[in-house]
């Protein structure tokens, strides 16, 4: 397993290089650059700005310079803010991580609970409630759910705040967590229900019950481990997706996270930030995928690397 892990880590390098190359050239191919604006810049100013940010050089030279800097973990400068991209990621990412972890916890705890209750009460009231919540959570996208929550709980009831994120201040945490975590919670609930129903029909579960084991022991010792494998499969990408932030949720609650930063960078053609954040996201996803693959081997003894 150690050799496999090391092999996977080394394989990340050509992956990140490929992503860097495709992103770099695609980025420069689309129309509009960082200095295009409604009020046209005087030509002298445009030339001076392009020289300031190294954009006056030929594209191939810019690409090679970028790769050389990348080898030293230098992600370049954000044109929009004139600050190192590494610093911006360092400031924005922790906020997205906090929100993402809280939303992940909400999704996993809520989803597992709902899915398990639904499975054990199949075609009963628990099942109907679980399926309803899961369906509603899947059907309501974030840009619909967030305003509904704001109108109800902020403007009408004044229970929570709409602005910002402050870890530990529940007034500022509850609504973004619910808005962000609802969709993954619905997904986890549906997968848990389906998987649990499948496992509960297995012979070894019938045997465990026939032996007279208490239901709690049947679920925890025998059913849960196998039922959780599909949940484990999706947890890696879900976790990575949550901790990398959401443009919609961060914008709806004015949270200065990485999700909103990345989309803004694309809209204003901030080349430095687009490259840096894309590679950072790619790295996060590659690491999370590796962790999930390793966890398979731990959870299922039949899997060997």
């Amino acid at each position, binding site marked *: 397993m150690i050799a496999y892990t090391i092999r996977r880590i080394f394989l990340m390098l050509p992956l990140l290089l490929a992503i860097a190359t495709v992103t770099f050239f695609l980025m420069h191919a*689309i*129309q*509009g*650059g960082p200095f*295009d*604006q*409604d*009020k*046209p*810049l*005087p*030509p*002298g*100013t445009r*030339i*001076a*700005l392009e*020289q*300031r940010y190294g954009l*006056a*050089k030929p594209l191939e030279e810019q690409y090679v310079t970028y790769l050389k800097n990348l080898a030293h973990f230098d992600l370049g400068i954000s044109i*929009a*803010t*004139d600050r190192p991209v590494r*610093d*911006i990621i360092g*400031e*924005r*990412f*922790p*906020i997205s*991580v*906090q929100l993402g*972890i809280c939303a992940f916890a909400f999704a996993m705890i809520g989803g597992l609970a709902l899915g398990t209750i639904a499975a054990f009460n199949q075609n009963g009231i628990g099942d109907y409630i679980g399926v309803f919540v899961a369906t509603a959570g899947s059907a309501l996208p974030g840009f619909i759910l967030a305003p509904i929550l704001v109108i109800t709980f*902020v*403007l009408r009831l*004044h229970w929570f*705040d*709409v*602005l*910002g994120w402050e*870890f530990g201040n529940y007034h500022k945490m509850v609504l973004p967590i619910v808005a962000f975590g609802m969709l993954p919670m619905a997904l986890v609930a549906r997968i848990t229900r389906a998987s649990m129903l499948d496992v509960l029909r297995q012979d070894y579960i019938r045997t465990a019950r026939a032996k007279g084991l208490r239901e709690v022991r049947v679920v925890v010792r025998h059913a849960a*481990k196998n039922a959780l494998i599909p949940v484990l499969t999706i947890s890696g990408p879900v976790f990575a997706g949550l*901790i990398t932030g959401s443009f919609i949720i961060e*914008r*709806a*609650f*004015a949270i*200065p996270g990485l999700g*909103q*930063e990345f989309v*803004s960078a694309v*809209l*204003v*053609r901030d080349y430095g930030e687009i490259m840096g954040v894309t590679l950072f996201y790619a790295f996060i996803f590659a690491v999370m995928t590796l*962790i999930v693959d390793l*966890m398979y081997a*731990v*959870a299922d*003894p039949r899997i060997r690397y």
Partner: protein
Amino acid sequence: MAKLRWRMLLGILTLVATVAVATSCGGSSNSSNTPASGATTSSSGAPSGTITIAGTQFQSWDPHFANFAQDIAQFYMVWRGLYEFDLNSKPVPSMAAAMPTVSADGKTFTVKLKSGLKWSDGTPLTAGDFVLGLQRTCNPDIAGNYEYILTAVVGCDTYYNSNGNPTATPPVPAKSATEKEALRQAVGVRAIDDTTIEYKLTDPQPTFGEMLAMWPTFPVPSSKVSKVDAAWPAPLANAYNGPFMPSAYTEKSSIELVPNPNWSGAQKPQVAKIVIKYIDDVAVADNAYRNGEIDATAVDSTQLAAVQKDPVLGKELVEYPATRTMGLEFNDSDPILSNKNVRVALSQAVDRNTLNTVVLQGANVPTTNWMPPDRSGVALGTYDSLIGYNVNAAKASLAASGLKTTDINLTLLMVDSAANHAVAEFLQSQWKTNLGLDVKLEFVDTKTRSARYNATQFQIVVGGWQEDYPDPENWMLGLWQNPSSQNKTKTNVAALDTILKQATYDQNDTERRQLYQQSEKLLLDGANGIAPLYHSGQHRLVKPYITGMKEEKRASDTFVPGDWNPEYWKTSKK
């Protein structure tokens, strides 16, 4: 063995969670809550209370480089130049002791500073700081976005272009460090003594006094920035000469300002703290205002009608004109739009009143003027007979063009947004109904639209101008002359070029303004490049316990009323 595997699984999960939490628990490296050494509240009429407003994150904290209105609005809270603009948009002394002394030929401006000026860190503010500021804007490595307003200063353009141009044919080489230093010394600004600054111009620019009120001429705290191309310090590391100074800053979240104890202005700050919350979406800012989280904000234009009718918000709404005009911009070099009668027909076919009342919810003022009346002195409606809404006249203009409707293939290029879709569909329906023309609509993102506009790769766009400084010169010079790098509509009217040349250096202010009025008529007669649609309005919400905002409102306000002079703001909320 199974127990061991589950323990390993638990261990991996714990490790991942710990790393994730550890990375998220660090505070932002750019934030600080160190209180500044500002004025403290005492019991006897000292600054009190906190005002929280909605704003947007600045792109650059460097006034000699910056480009965007949201940056400039914040600069005026913490820095001031030799002059500032009063409520009538006239420059009045700020750091200067009096208005400048101008030589007979109009090419030398001499300014005396007030005595005893200090930066917020206690160091003296001298004439040398203003010299360094102007040199900084002209410096090629700083690449100041507003260097163009200093084009009349001797040597500024030459210094600015001294990095050469590798993409030119043939390439222009960069100057050496020694040559660049010589060019810096040759820029037409010097400190005669610690309190006197002299500016030398290549030509007598009648509006130069206004330039000395603008941010590219702000002084540099030489205790923090000793060389012309040195990095500009971040908000909490800088020094300030304005009424307020930053005490805390978190990027993309907020900035907190407290009174500057060394502010030399007559009006001292009246609030203990101003907090600017950075909120990109105005709808979110409006929700925060309704929830009492902020005290003043802009109004979401899609909600304007509802706000106007609301019994509470309607009383808190402040509405006044902005210095911005939007209209139909035509590519005059296009084979179809080079025909003046087609342009005039398109303008005459648009009902500006309905556009404003129905589509824009009454947010703006319909117009056929290019310059706002306060700026030009020309009454609204003066050009209605030339290009205003008149269906019969529109049909006649189209007939006079000699083109059949089937020969006229036009595309309207717009930025993709909900509001723009409504405007574009209205215009399309007006041209179909009144002229029988099928104009296509094309929606793209902001940067693509800007790139195509800058390259004149369009037929019609909805665009306009936001004033940089309060003078008719800013509405005409460079935008409509031929040739000019700023003339993206390829407007080409010889008489207009002639009159603008005359106006640029006319030292008689009355005569100069009359020339600009004439130039506006030449521009609009024939819709040469532009057919104005509306002057923008400002719509702001201000809580009733705030004073000083409405009273100091200006057409050029960016975030909230009176944000150019926050020293007048007061709050009765504790």
